[in-house]
């Protein structure tokens, strides 16, 4: 399929990218653009987000397709690395370095002129003490996350990639980090943040790329994707003391596409979850039934992503 040309301000262009490891297809024919701002890479664990991020940073070579970061091939052009900062997901750190030594070395290797000053400044920015002389392995998970973020931004890259950066942070730190992502984005940088938590992504901003099972499930404005998710068909289990009477009443509703009785409970499919929420109580009352439980069976993120892929 021919892609529309990327917008003029696209900083990353991903075209028909696939990645396989032997027989395992990790990423399949993914195409999208990233513009300045915060872009969330959303998908369940094992969906291929980290593989996509690694390819965007040049750490992994696509099996097919092309990736351009600021017009450069991130894999073969070392110059691209000067414009990329990445905080990988893994927790491992250099056991013999302090936070300042680690971030300063990163700055030096990026050619930052005042490496020590810059390292101290970004450590301060992520709320860590530059003069803390403890080695990195003694840091908590949240502190390590912030050290990784500091080394990723110390050279002021135009493209910042953060793999699950909020994991291990407390709520206040999360808020602070999300604010920082937005400030970085407001300076014209592309900040790509991967996450498997829908509510987390909601705070990141409006651009979302949804990856599921290695495929592009959805892409675009978060609100539109949220609506798609809200409007999707749902399967709901209803427990009541009058199963057959309530089932007969429910099947007459236009949004309900299927009703079956299983294990003394009703399992129904609906394409209008909002309508079901509004009518189920009056219908039960009319049927003389007592509602014991109304529970969606496919509210987990996996189901949402499966729907988006199959759509």
């Amino acid at each position: 399929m021919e892609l529309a040309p990327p917008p003029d301000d696209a900083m990353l262009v991903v075209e028909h990218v696939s990645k396989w490891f032997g027989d395992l297809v990790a990423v399949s024919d993914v195409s999208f653009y990233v513009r300045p701002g915060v872009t969330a890479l959303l998908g369940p664990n094992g969906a291929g987000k980290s593989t996509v991020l690694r390819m965007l940073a040049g750490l992994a070579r696509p099996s097919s397709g092309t990736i351009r970061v600021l017009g450069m091939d991130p894999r073969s052009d070392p110059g691209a690395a000067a414009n990329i900062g990445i905080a990988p997901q893994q927790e491992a750190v250099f056991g013999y370095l302090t936070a300042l030594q680690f971030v300063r070395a990163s700055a030096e290797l990026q050619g930052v002129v005042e490496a020590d000053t810059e390292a101290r400044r970004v450590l301060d920015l992520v709320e860590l003490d530059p003069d803390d002389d403890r080695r990195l392995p003694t840091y908590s998970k949240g502190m390590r996350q912030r050290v990784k973020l500091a080394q990723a931004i110390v050279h002021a890259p135009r493209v910042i990639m953060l793999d699950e950066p909020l994991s291990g942070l407390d709520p206040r730190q999360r808020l602070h980090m999300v604010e920082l992502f937005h400030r970085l984005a407001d300076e014209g940088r592309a900040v790509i943040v991967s996450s498997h938590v829908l509510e987390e992504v909601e705070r990141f901003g409006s651009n979302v790329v949804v990856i599921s099972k290695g495929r592009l499930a959805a892409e675009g404005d978060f609100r539109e994707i949220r609506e798609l998710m809200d409007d999707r068909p749902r399967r709901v289990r209803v427990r009541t003391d009058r199963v057959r009477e309530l089932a007969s009443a429910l099947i007459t509703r236009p949004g309900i596409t299927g009703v079956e009785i299983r294990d003394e409970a009703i399992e129904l499919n609906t394409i209008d979850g909002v309508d079901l929420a509004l009518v189920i109580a009056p219908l039960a009352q009319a049927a003389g039934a007592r509602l014991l439980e109304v529970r969606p069976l496919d509210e987990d993120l996996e189901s949402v992503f499966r729907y988006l892929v199959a759509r």
Partner: protein
Amino acid sequence: MTTTPPRAATSARLGPGRSIPIFTRLLLRGQLTRSRVVWLVLLSAIVVVTAVVSRGSGDEAAVFALGEFGLAAYVPLVAVLLATPILGDLVEDRLLVYLWLKPTPRWHLAVAAYLAAAVTAALVTVPTLVLGALISSDPGLTLAVGGAALLGVVAYCAAFVFLGARFSFGLWIGLAYVAIWENLLARLGDGAARISIRSYLMTVLERSTTVVVELADRAWAAALIVPPAIGVVFVGLTALTLQSRDID
């Protein structure tokens, strides 16, 4: 807490003169872990003890102690211990990303890893073997043993840095090369001996003594040129490995 967002830092692509020392310094700091220090002290102590035991027993005993154990076992074992993990551990611990994603050609990192391994190995082996030569008897052996150890470090470290970067079980391949190839197969024929680093080191050793040294069958020029050439080839292969492999 500062509220200033990161400003545009002035950065420029680093040349080898700046990047290699930074990489080397970082890698050097991770070299001497507690377990490695224990092994290095133990192996070095065996060299010194062997030299003490061979003292006064004539040139043959000294050459055996310094050649068969010192150059043929001690030097490659120290090299495999220090060189295979220098990139191999970074790959295994998924830390290589922090050094790889920098605006420098991959060979800078390959050279730095090699330098860090070779400098440490040389600082451990050369003084120990020179001390062994001084203890064991013939001071004339000192220069030859020191020179051969240095040549051994140059070749072995390059090969073992590559093995560590390329294979997850590089340490075992290195040990198998030393134990099986250099100590068994190289004795079976000249072809196998030619690709044994040990034979070049033994040739250097034999030049300084009247004792016949096993496997010292290489030409003098080859003994001096081949180990550095092996070093260059394997550093190049390490750079190619870093260029081509996916980084976790």
